[in-house]
């Protein structure tokens, strides 16, 4: 059977060059970077090379990158690692963050920190005015993501940055964390330019290895490590470095940088999404796109994530029916699938009933082709028809 993988926001298939880099690091550079001898030095060099590549992709200095054991760990290091300072006791985040951010904030709450959760509009977008209104004298951290993982809403970072800059100009100390895990490799990242202090990325969302992520930490940002110990990663993440994982991340970052430099690839990715969305909406009566409208000139719309509701069907049933046709998609975010039947993101956008229950996420990557999209459209249409016939 033909297989079309459209669950790239859950995870991606590693690029061949990534697999090669991982194997090389395991077979040749197997030393411990902390070891003083050649084996250690060589392993350390592999880490340094990867750090340079990842940093370059984010337009920052290598010394500002901390490698972590995954995206969620980077997020937790940022959200929980920031020292509130003498006056800080308030954190602002949004209703559509990933559980990593929301649950890390939940842990802060247990420690007595107050959390303000900003609402979103019907497309999943935060209003910078709401941020301005929520900022307080004792706000020490703002955690607002770049691209939402469930509906692909792109938050207005420029305008949010302006609000934060204004607040800082008034003499207030405030750190800003951006969860860029879904945006990385798809949209340009420029944390330094925007005044972002902390930015999380995860390798496996860009065809790198699982279990490795990175946190950009702006110069002079004080953080408390989650993992204390031998003092690796400038003391911010102890433990023997995951040399193969980091090398694989570097290899993925190098490919992603090439893709990003070529403006055609970005256009091509968006064109695929558009083809998918328009194909399905045109042929399936009642189907609705959740999130920002899919138009090339819409800056709120990410090029790779399309969330569509099929009223009258259960998302999970459609998912399995598509699986039966070799098409792999997701209901809501992968992490939430287990416990949370109704996605917190769609709920925050005001979805209810059949639109909430019948939502499916298609997530694309550079490796998908037009043919695959056509196959997916054709089979989605057929699967929906078949199921609707049963449900009459």
């Amino acid at each position, binding site marked *: 059977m033909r297989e079309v993988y459209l669950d790239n926001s859950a995870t991606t298939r590693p690029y061949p060059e990534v697999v090669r880099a991982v194997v090389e690091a395991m077979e040749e550079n197997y030393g411990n970077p902390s070891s003083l001898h050649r084996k250690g030095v060589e392993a350390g060099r592999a880490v340094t090379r990867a750090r340079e590549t990842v940093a370059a992709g984010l337009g920052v200095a290598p010394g500002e990158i901390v490698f972590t054991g995954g995206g969620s760990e980077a997020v937790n290091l940022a959200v929980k690692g920031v020292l509130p300072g003498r006056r800080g006791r308030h954190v602002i985040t949004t209703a559509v963050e990933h559980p990593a951010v929301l649950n890390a904030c939940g842990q802060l709450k247990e420690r007595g920190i107050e959390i303000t959760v900003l609402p979103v509009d019907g497309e999943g977008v935060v209003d910078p005015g709401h941020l301005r209104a929520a900022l307080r004298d004792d706000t020490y951290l703002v955690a607002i993501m770049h691209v939402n993982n469930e509906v692909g809403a792109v938050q207005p970072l420029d305008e949010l940055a302006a609000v934060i800059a204004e607040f800082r100009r008034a003499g207030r100390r405030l750190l800003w964390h951006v969860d860029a895990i879904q945006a990385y490799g798809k949209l340009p990242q420029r944390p330094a330019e925007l005044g972002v202090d902390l930015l999380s990325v995860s390798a496996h969302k860009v065809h790198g290895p699982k279990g490795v992520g990175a946190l950009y930490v702006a110069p002079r940002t004080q953080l408390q490590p989650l993992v204390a110990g031998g003092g690796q990663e400038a003391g911010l993440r102890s433990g023997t470095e995951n040399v193969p994982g980091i090398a694989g991340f570097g290899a993925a970052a190098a490919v992603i940088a090439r893709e990003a430099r070529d403006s055609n690839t970005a256009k091509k990715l968006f064109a695929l999404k558009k083809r998918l969305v328009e194909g399905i909406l045109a042929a399936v009566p009642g189907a609705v796109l959740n999130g920002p409208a899919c138009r090339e000139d819409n800056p709120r719309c990410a090029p790779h994530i399309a969330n569509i509701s099929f009223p009258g069907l*259960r998302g*999970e*049933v459609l*998912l*399995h*029916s598509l*699986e*039966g046709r070799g098409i792999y998609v997701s209901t809501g975010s992968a992490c939430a*699938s*287990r*416990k*949370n*039947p109704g996605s917190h993101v769609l709920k925050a956008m005001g979805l209810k009933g059949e639109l909430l229950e019948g939502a499916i996420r298609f997530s694309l990557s550079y490796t998908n082709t037009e043919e695959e999209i056509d196959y997916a459209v054709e089979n989605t249409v057929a699967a929906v028809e078949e*199921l609707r*016939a*049963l*449900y*009459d």
Partner: protein
Amino acid sequence: MYNTYMIRYGEIGLKGKNRPAFEKRLMGNISRALKDTGPARVQRVYGRILVESAADPARVLDKLSKVFGIVGIGPALRLPLDEEAICEGALAALKDAAAGIKKTPGTPLTFKVEARRSNKQFPRTSPELNGLIGGYLLKNYPGLTVDVHNPQIRVRVEIREKNAFIYAADILGVGGLPVGASGKALLLLSGGIDSPVAGWMAMKRGIEIEAVHFHSFPFTGEKSLEKVRDLCRALTAYTARIKLHVVHFTDIQKDIQKNCPEELRVTIMRRMMFRLAKRIAGQQEALALVTGESVGQVASQTLESMRVINQVIDLPVLRPLVGMDKLEIIHRAQEIGTYDISVLPYEDCCTLFLPKHPATRPRSEQAEEAEKPLAVEDLLAGALERTVVEDIGRKV
């Protein structure tokens, strides 16, 4: 610290001449339950079962507390016939029992020594022992007083042929009858909260269980099946292994959706399930079905619909949950470790096509009429042909 466990098994002690068979089965079940904890010796002595194991007592107790048929467990110290050792052992056992008792500051802890001497060669009589050990404990454990009528702690000392046994704690067992003592039944296992509890309750009465699950791939995915396997695995904490029959139910469900009136679909689906279960029960020599139904007001749980569903088979159907409230069922599910698995949200065949207005009081004629368009025999044969049997064993 404990190395011996005195097992009491009330109910089966009463079973007259069946007793040896019951005991043998219980001993077998105990041995099997302790297999993963390391070497253990299980033997029968004086109306008790004596288990000896050097493994971590917490682990042993955890396993024993899941063997049906056990009424009480006395973790014990097996000691040489030496007065000093016996006194020290009694003190250790007392301390351990005291740790489990809520103390009220200011009031002393009450205790009593109950010595029994079945080995008359031992130089001290039981009353002498009571005095000797009691005195030692009073001297070495501050804040203790004797209460012969209603003590908080009974330190029991048994002087046997070669050893002395000392135990002070008495831990409640699950009770019931040893699994296998009452024959075999087939459990209709969905992914919900109820059916695993029903299976557990049947096992508690000594019934060996095989499970049947109706799977509607591709409408329900591999994870919903994995969830059912996990439920079986959780139940294997109470029995050796469970055979799981996974029936391919998709075609039947599709046919029902296509051909039967909406309000009767649940009834007919259940009738088809019962028919399939009956055939599997026949093959496996199971004597009854067990379901998680209880009496309520939802579709398949009214007496009317139970009657209509039951009509298609001639096996007894046990519904151990009829007398329980939903909250009781949930508590039991939490206790036996199936609740967290059951609440995973994956769709199963029963949640797939829920009609908006199911008939709550269906009549047999209606059901028979509604089934007419179905090629029942062919559907059953087709589903059974694609049934896969899995052996779910306990994981260490």
